[in-house]
């Protein structure tokens, strides 16, 4: 069966598409809203904002998160900032320019209509968050401050010291808290979604496990919204939080939701290098550091063992400034990352294992003074020193790329609805706005645009239409499909508990992550991907025979939680490799060694690959047997695809 992927984006002038679409959408009468139940899974910027806003509008909302409180969602860890086309700096920015930069930065693999809407809404987000009391940086005038960030030539990034994500999340959390108090939102912390309930072809609920009591429960609703983040932890070592997982979206994929462009993964150039095999995660240093830090390695391999201050200026290779004179240290993330890998592959990397490059603040400290640098980056410098024991004021930082963000996710249309009616997906969990590469300071923007502004309108439209057509029949927890989904979850939990093997969930996760990073990390080849596609099913088979989960299912059992997540990563990882193998071009964060220009830059193949690849899961409870590809062709009416050049 082929699934026709319709974007449902309006045509015509791009600048008025969202306005016209909003007018065309159906509304739900205020008095009727409380009769409709909306489930929101995830409480980060997208989920928290969506739940709060739909609560404000009067819907009956249930919100779920795996952390002990919604304030801890991983959006909190974003450091650098949030873009908005306010043009407060009068430096030539505009909605169109933000749109243009985002389409180009995404290497022409995003949907133009979505990106334009994102750029439009960016200005509303800053208004909304400022009104909530988010303490954005200000100038002495009392007006908001901006900086240039990650590959942008205008200063359009709003920031809050190095804690922008935290402050925006606390804003969304406070709005959510108000609605919880008002009774419009019921919050379920320490609760994990383990399955999606489909009834008559529509998403009608979820099965959850209470992570404290172990109770498996079903929740039915009229709409299910997944804002559950990305799948970066398939690499085990990433900058994601320990609990970040793909389970919610993967369970939906197993129920028929298409998973799009999984091979678009973002490697962040400025992370603290791996120090040892005990390591549980990698720490990101905000890329705002590249505004004032200069990236270099020694020109000669022989100098790599020396201390950085022993290497003379003339013996240093500021390779980004050399190769990309107009963007220099501010080239987009994928380019900065690949170049770091290249110089390390040449044997010019620094630090233990030779996998690191210097990020040097010496010049900036000399020019601006230590106090100014400390004001801008003090908390990041402190964090670096705590982790590595080195003082970045006196010795250059060492950085290396790490997995940070995943552009792929569940396929959604312009309404952010998946191919399953009633299943909406927001934030990093969907695939929509960043194409093959996300620009810095755009993740927060997308999460909040989805949560505060888009989902509340499009969910209402769906409810109004379905209700008018008489399709939203009353269902309750006794429905056979609900009972079956719940029984399946219990069977699966018991299966994980009863393998009684020898290996911990972490040991499988670590092994999976190492092989995915090796063969599907910064550079991917047909041969490597084929190896990966052979090894993941083998590891998955061992997992189901040799896993050890001690304890029981009816208590707080963190290894049981991990085991379920690793089981899903072991399936999703295979799709990641499959997608990477099929996309024979290089684009954005996906670099196929077979497809590069003469000077080693990523080479797109628009003729054959200008589409979103949306994959359908085929398989059974044991795992996938096949993935079927569906394509959504991408059209570019405004920003004509060109080879990206940052020289």
């Amino acid at each position, binding site marked *: 069966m082929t699934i026709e992927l319709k974007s449902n984006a309006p045509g015509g002038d791009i600048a008025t598409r969202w306005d016209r679409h909003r007018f065309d959408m159906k509304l739900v009468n205020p008095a009727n809203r409380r009769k409709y139940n909306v489930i929101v899974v995830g409480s980060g910027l997208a989920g928290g904002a969506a739940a709060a806003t739909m609560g404000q509008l009067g819907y009956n909302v249930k919100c779920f998160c795996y952390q002990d409180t919604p304030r801890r969602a991983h959006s909190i860890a974003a450091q650098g900032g949030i873009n908005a086309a306010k043009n407060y700096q009068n430096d030539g920015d505009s909605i169109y320019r933000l749109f243009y930069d985002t389409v180009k930065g995404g290497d022409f693999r995003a949907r133009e209509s979505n990106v334009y809407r994102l750029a439009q809404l960016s200005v509303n987000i800053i208004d909304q968050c400022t*009104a909530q009391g988010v303490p954005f940086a200000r100038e002495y005038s009392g007006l908001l401050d901006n900086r240039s960030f990650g590959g942008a030539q205008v200063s359009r990034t709003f920031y809050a010291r190095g*804690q922008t994500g935290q402050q925006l999340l606390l804003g969304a959390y406070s709005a959510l808290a108000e609605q919880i108090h008002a009774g419009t939102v019921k919050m379920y912390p320490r609760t994990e979604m383990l399955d999606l309930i489909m009834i008559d072809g529509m998403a009608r609920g979820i099965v959850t496990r209470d992570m404290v009591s172990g109770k498996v429960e079903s929740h039915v609703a009229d709409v299910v919204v997944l804002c559950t983040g990305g799948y970066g932890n398939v690499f085990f070592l990433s900058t994601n939080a320990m609990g970040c997982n793909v389970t919610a979206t993967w369970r939906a994929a197993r129920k028929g939701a298409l998973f799009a462009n999984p091979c678009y993964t973002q490697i962040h150039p400025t992370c603290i290098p791996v120090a040892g095999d005990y390591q549980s995660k990698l720490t990101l240093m905000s890329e705002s550091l590249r505004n004032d830090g200069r990236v270099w390695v020694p020109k000669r391999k022989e100098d790599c063992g020396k201390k950085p201050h022993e290497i003379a200026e003339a013996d240093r290779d500021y390779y980004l400034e050399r190769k990309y004179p107009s963007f220099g240290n501010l080239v987009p993330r994928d380019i900065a990352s690949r170049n770091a890998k290249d110089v390390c592959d040449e044997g010019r990397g620094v630090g233990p294992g030779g996998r690191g490059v210097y990020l040097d603040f010496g010049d900036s400290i000399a020019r601006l003074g230590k106090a100014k640098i400390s004001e801008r980056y003090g908390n990041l410098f402190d964090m670096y020193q705590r*982790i590595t024991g080195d003082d970045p004021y006196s010795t250059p930082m060492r950085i290396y790329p790490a997995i940070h963000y995943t552009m792929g996710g569940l396929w959604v249309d312009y309404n952010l609805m998946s191919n399953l009616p009633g299943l909406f997906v927001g934030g990093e969990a969907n695939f929509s706005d960043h194409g093959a590469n996300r620009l810095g300071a755009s993740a927060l923007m997308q999460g909040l645009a989805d949560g505060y502004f888009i989902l509340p309108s499009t969910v209402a439209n769906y409810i109004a239409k379905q209700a008018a057509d008489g399709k939203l029949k009353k269902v309750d927890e006794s429905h056979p499909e609900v009972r079956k989904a719940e029984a399946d979850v219990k069977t699966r939990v018991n299966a994980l508990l009863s393998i009684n093997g020898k290996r911990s969930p972490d040991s499988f996760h670590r092994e999976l992550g190492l092989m995915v990073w090796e063969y599907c990390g910064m550079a991917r080849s047909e041969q490597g991907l084929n190896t990966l596609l052979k090894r993941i099913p083998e590891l998955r088979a061992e997992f189901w025979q040799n896993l050890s989960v001690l304890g029981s299912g009816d208590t707080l059992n963190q290894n049981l939680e991990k085991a379920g997540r690793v089981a899903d990563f072991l399936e999703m990882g295979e799709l990641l490799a499959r997608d990477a193998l099929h996309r024979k071009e290089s684009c954005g964060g996906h670099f196929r060694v077979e497809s590069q220009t003469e000077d080693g830059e990523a080479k797109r193949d628009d003729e054959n690959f200008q589409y979103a690849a949306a994959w359908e899961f085929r398989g059974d409870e044991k795992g996938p047997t096949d993935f079927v590809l569906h394509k959504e062709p991408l059209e570019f009416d405004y920003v004509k695809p060109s080879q990206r050049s940052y020289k």
Partner: protein
Amino acid sequence: MSELNIHLHVWRQPGPQADGKFVHYELKVTEHASFLEMLDILNEQLISKGEEPIAFDSDCREGICGMCGIMINGVPHGPQSATTACQLHMRTFKSGDEIWVEPFRARAFPVLRDLVVDRGSFDRIIQSGGYISVRAGSAPEANGIRVAKPDADLAFDAAACIGCGACVAACPNASASLFTSAKIGHLGLLPQGQPQRDRRVLAMVRQMDSEGFGNCTNHRECEAACPKEISIAFIARMNRDFVAASARERPEKAISGPG
């Protein structure tokens, strides 16, 4: 890479109602591991021996989410100032050290298992009034509100709270005054926060009291333990606001809308 031999005593408690006790473990660990990675390593060893691993909370492991919170040798988040447990590294300790690890202790933070506690009381304090009400879509132009930089900076200092609960665990009275006052200070310093300032402080302080937290008696242990170095000056500010708001408080009338 130098390795440390450490003698660990970890609080083990199978469930909320069960009795707990310290259990002794010997461990060799690299000095470059973080404190929580040290617990990961121990847990892997326990699993391989068929013993249930130690339950503890952690998520971002970057010192920002506030999920990790444990007592290390009687100090919340351990001996290094301005550092969460996840950012504490074993190089802070010496080979041969005895390390006692236990959950945050407070009546309002019941233990769920081992080192995991329930901090839902913090959420309820925020829910009672820790927000500025603004419907999505109703916000004025952001630069229409000027905020003097010193006020914005001071508000930021309070907003840096990560809600970990170290202040409560450090306080001999298990008071939540630092946590509560940080949110009241953050929002009360901003022009946007003025319309709800009185309601906010009255509701949040009353909720804090009803959750079973103790009173502040100026021990200042909270400030010393706070990984984000939030100042107790915010507690003084909260108390002033509370007194002023109490004096101004009058019963709210229900006013119906037109028509």
